[in-house]
C-alpha cells in the first residue's frame, strides 16, 4: 500500500522523471503533469494527497495554478509545495499569498523535498482536516 498519492508538475521532463523515481523510492505513488492545465485536470480527477508544483511553466504558471487549486472546493484542501528556480523573498511572498503550503527553491535535494512532503502529510492528516 502506497504512503500517499503525489502529483508532480513541472515542464522540465527530466525533473519529473527524477522526482517520479525518488518519491517512488520513498513509497509514494507519483502522478505527473507537464503544465498547469494538466495539473488542474489531474488534481480534480485523481485527487492526490499533495501537489509539487513548479512556478515557471508555460500556459498556466505555478502561481495561477495554485490560486485555482485553492479556490476550487474540490482541491483546496490538497497541500501544495511550490518549486522554483526563483529564490527571492518576493517570490516566496507571492507563493504564500496564493495559498501555497510550502516552498522549495531549485536546485534542491530530493531528500529535502521528501522531508517536507512527509511533514506536510503528517500535519494535514484527515483527522485534523475534519476537526
Amino acid at each position, binding site marked *: 500500500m502506497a504512503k500517499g498519492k503525489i502529483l508532480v508538475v513541472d515542464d522540465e521532463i*527530466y525533473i519529473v522523471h527524477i522526482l517520479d523515481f525518488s518519491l517512488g523510492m520513498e513509497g509514494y505513488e507519483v502522478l505527473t503533469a507537464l503544465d498547469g492545465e494538466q495539473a488542474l485536470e489531474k488534481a480534480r480527477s485523481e485527487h492526490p494527497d499533495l501537489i509539487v508544483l513548479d512556478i515557471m511553466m508555460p500556459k498556466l504558471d505555478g502561481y495561477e495554478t495554485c490560486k485555482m487549486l485553492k479556490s476550487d472546493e474540490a482541491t483546496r484542501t490538497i497541500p501544495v509545495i511550490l518549486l522554483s528556480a526563483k529564490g527571492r523573498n518576493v517570490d516566496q511572498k507571492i507563493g504564500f499569498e496564493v495559498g501555497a503550503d510550502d516552498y522549495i527553491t531549485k536546485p534542491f535535494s530530493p531528500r529535502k523535498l521528501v522531508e517536507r512532503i512527509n511533514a506536510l502529510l503528517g500535519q494535514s492528516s484527515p483527522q485534523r482536516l475534519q476537526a
Partner: protein
Amino acid sequence: MKKRKAGIAPPSDAEVRLRSELDRTRRDNSRMKREAADPVRPRRSDSDVPGTNGQAQAASEGTAAAPGELEGLRAQVEELSTTRQRLSKLYFSQVEENRKRAGKLHQILENICQINSHLDLDDLLQGLCETITTTLGFGVVLIRLREPGTSRLHACAFSGITPAARVLLQSQDVKLEEFLSWLREDFKVGRSYFISHSHSFNRTLPTGYTPDLGTREEWEWHKDDVLLVPLFNRSGELVAYFSVDDPIDRLVPSSETMELLEIFGNHAVVAIENARLYRQLEQHTRELEEAGTRMQELHALKSNFVSTVSHELRTPLTAIKACVDTLLAAGDREVPRDRQQHFLTIIRDENQRLARLIESVLDLNRFDSGAVKLVRQAVDMAELLGESERLLAPVAITGQVNLKVVTELADTRVDADRDQLRQLVLHLGSNAIKFTPAGGSVLLRLRGDSREVTLQVEDTGIGIPEQALEKIFERFYQVDSSLVRRYGGTGLGLAICKSIVEWHGGRVSAESTPGLGSRFTVVLPRRNGPPVVVRSLPHGESATEDLLRLAIEMVSEVMNARVVSLLTPEPDGALRIQAAVGLDETVVRDTRVAPGFGVAGRVASERRPLCVAHAGENGDQPASRRETYFSDTYLSVPLEGSQGLLGVLNVTDPEGGRPFEAEDCHLLLQVAARVAVAWQQASRSSDGASEVAATLRQVVRHLERARRSAPDRVNLARALAREAGLDEAEAALVSFAASIHDVGMNKLGESVIEGVGRLSDVERQAVLDHPEVGADLLEPLETLGAVQDVILAHHEWWDGTGYPRQLSGEAIPIGSRVLALVDAWESMVVGRAHKPARSRDEALGELIRLSGRQFDPALVQMFASALAASERHNASAVRGAMPDKGAAGERAMHDSGR
C-alpha cells in the same frame, strides 16, 4: 559747430519759471527789509523816484497814519502773502516732481530686478525693450544680440517697431566689425555713443528702414540721430547693444537718461549671461536625465537578463543535482540499471545544455559590448549553404525531414564574416528542422539583387503564433519553453542570429502560419567596398545584370585596376556607362559620350584599342577627368561582338600606380574577348545568362582568393611565353590563363588548395579532375577554346606521366608547358602551408632536375632569363608607384579626404 553738447540738457520750463520767481522774491524781500530798518531814508533818498517814493514818504512821515500810506502797506502785505503762496506752491510742485522722479527710479529698480529674474533669453530681452520704452520714454528700442563665438549681431528684441520692419531688421545682421567701427571716440558720451545726424557719418541702415520722427528744431531729436549703448561683459567681449530712438520729449536725452540706459545695460549683460548659463545648465540637465533614463532601462534589461540567465542556469543544475542526490540517497537500495542509465544520460544532457547556454551568453555579451570583430571576406552564400546542407543532413534524416537548397541568383557573394554566417545558417536550418514534424520539409533559398542577398529558411513545421512573432528574437523568449527544452534550445539562438545579422548591416524577420510552417528571412548587404554599379537593363534582365557585375569584377581583378567601366552604344551612337566599379552612381547615370569624342568615343568609332601611359604626355585628358579617376594612365578597348561593336571597356587607376603598357592592353583584349562572348551568350536566353554568370562567379572567386600571388604569376607567364617566341597576343592569352588556371579547384575546400593535411580519396580525385573541371567551367567564355586548352593540359608532364590525358612532348600545348613551369615555381617559392618556401636556387635546381621529365627542357633553359625579365618588370612597377607620377599622391589625398 553745434552750440550745445549732447547730454547737457536745456533748462526745463519749470526751472526757468522757478528761477525767475526766486529772483523776484529775493528782490522784494531785500527791499522790505531795507524799508523796515530805515523807513524814512529811502523815501528821501529815493525822492527822484515818484510813485512808490511818494507812498513810502506818506507812510513814514505821518505818525498819524495817512490813509494813503496804510493802503499802500496793505497792498504790500497782500502782495507779500500772494508771493508766499506762490512760493509754497512752487515748493510743493518741486517736491511733487522729486517724488515722481523717485517713483520712476523705484520703477526702474523694480524693472532691473525683474530683468535679472528672467531666465528665458527672448523674454528677458523683450521685457527689457518694453521697460526702456515705458520708463525712459524712447518710442523705439532695438536690441541686437551676439551669439557667443560668432561675429554677427542679430536683432532679437524690439519695441515700437512695426512687424514688417522687424522682419527686415531680423533678416539683416550687423557684422561685429562694422558695429565696432561706429563706436568712435568723438561720439562717446559716458559709455554710450550719440551719433548726431549732423555727423558726416555713414551708417548702413537696413534698406527700407526710415523712421520718420517729424521736423527738427534746435535741441530737438532728429530722425537721423542715433544713440547706441554697447554692452560688454567682464572679459571685454561685446554681448549686445541697445539702439534707441524716438524719445517722447523729442529732445536729445539728458546725461541722466543716458546713465539710466547704461544701468539697464549693465544689468542686461549679467542677465543675458545668466540666461545663457541657465540654458546650458538646462541642456546638461536634460542630457543627464536622458542618460539616466537610458541607464535605468539598461539596468532593468540587464537585471532582467541576469535573473533569467540564473533561472536558465539553475534549471539544468537542478536536474543534475537531483540525479546525483537520488543516486547517492538510494544507499543500499538497488537502483534499477535502466534508471541509472537514464539518470546518467540526464546528467550528460543537462551538462551540455549548461555549456551551450554559457557559450551563448558569452556570444551575446560579445555582441552587446561591441567586442565582435568581423573578419570580412567574400563569402559565397551558395557554397556556404552547400556546406550547411551537408552538416544538417544527418539531423534532417533522423527527423525524417526533407532538406533542400535552392539558389535563385547567379552572384551569391556577400562581404561578410564567414564563421558567423555559418553559425547563422546552421542555427536557422537546425531550428527549422527541429520544429518540423517527420515527413515535412525545410527549404533554404537564396535570392537577391545587386545590393543584397536574401536567405530564406522555410519549413512546414508547427509554426509560430502571431503574437509571438515579434518577440521570438528577444532573449529567452520561448513560445513554449517545454518545446524548446525538448529540442535542446537555450532560448538565445535567435537573439544571437539577430545580432549577427545586425552586425553585418542586415535585417532578419519571421513570418508564420501556425500549423503550416514558418519562414525566416535574412537580408544581407552584399559588400562594404565600392560596389559595382549597373544601370538597369530595359527588360529587367536580372541575370544579365548579375553577369555584367561579375564581368566588371573579373576585369578589375585581372587588370588589378580600381576603376573599370563598360560603355555601350545608344541607338544614336552615343556611349553610356552600363556598368562600372569605382565610379559614383551619378557619374554612371549621367555620363554620355558623343560618338568620336573622348577616348571611349574614339575607341568606339575607330574600333582600335587605346593605351595611355600618362595622359599628361598627350595632353588630351581634360582636368575634370582626373578628378573622377585617380590616375592619369588608362586603357580603353572595343568590345567586339559577332554582329558588331558591343561596347567599350575602360580600365584605369591600377593598383600600385604603375602606368599601363602595351602588354596590359593585350591582356585586356583577351579579357574583353571573354566578356564579349559571355554577354552574347547571356543575351540569347536567361538560362544562358545564369550559366555564364555562374562561370564568372567561379572565376571571380578564384581571382579573389589568389589575389596576392596573381600579379607575379601573370608577369612570369608572360615573360616566359615571350622568351619561347610567342607573340604579344599569345603571351597575353597565356598570362590570362595563368591568372585563372586553378578555377577548377574552387569546389575543393581551402584546406586542399592550401595543401594542409592528407587528402581523402574524394579530394584526391577532385585534385586530379581540376584541369578538366576548370576547362569545362570556362566553356561559356570561349569561342576557340584557347584558354581551355592551356588550362586542361597544365598538369601534363613532358614524359607523358601527367594528367588528365597523359599527353607528352610537343603534343602538350606550348601555353600549358609554360604554365606548368610557372605554377611549379610559384608553389615552391611562395611555399604552401605544409611546405616552407624554398630558396630560389633550390627551386631552380628542382626545375632543372625535373627538366625533360615534368617540364619542357627548352623552356627550363629559358626560365632563368624570363624570371629576370619579369622581375625587372616588377621592379619598374614599384618605381612606377612612386608618388612623383602623381597618381599615388593624388589617391592618398582622395582617401584621406573621404
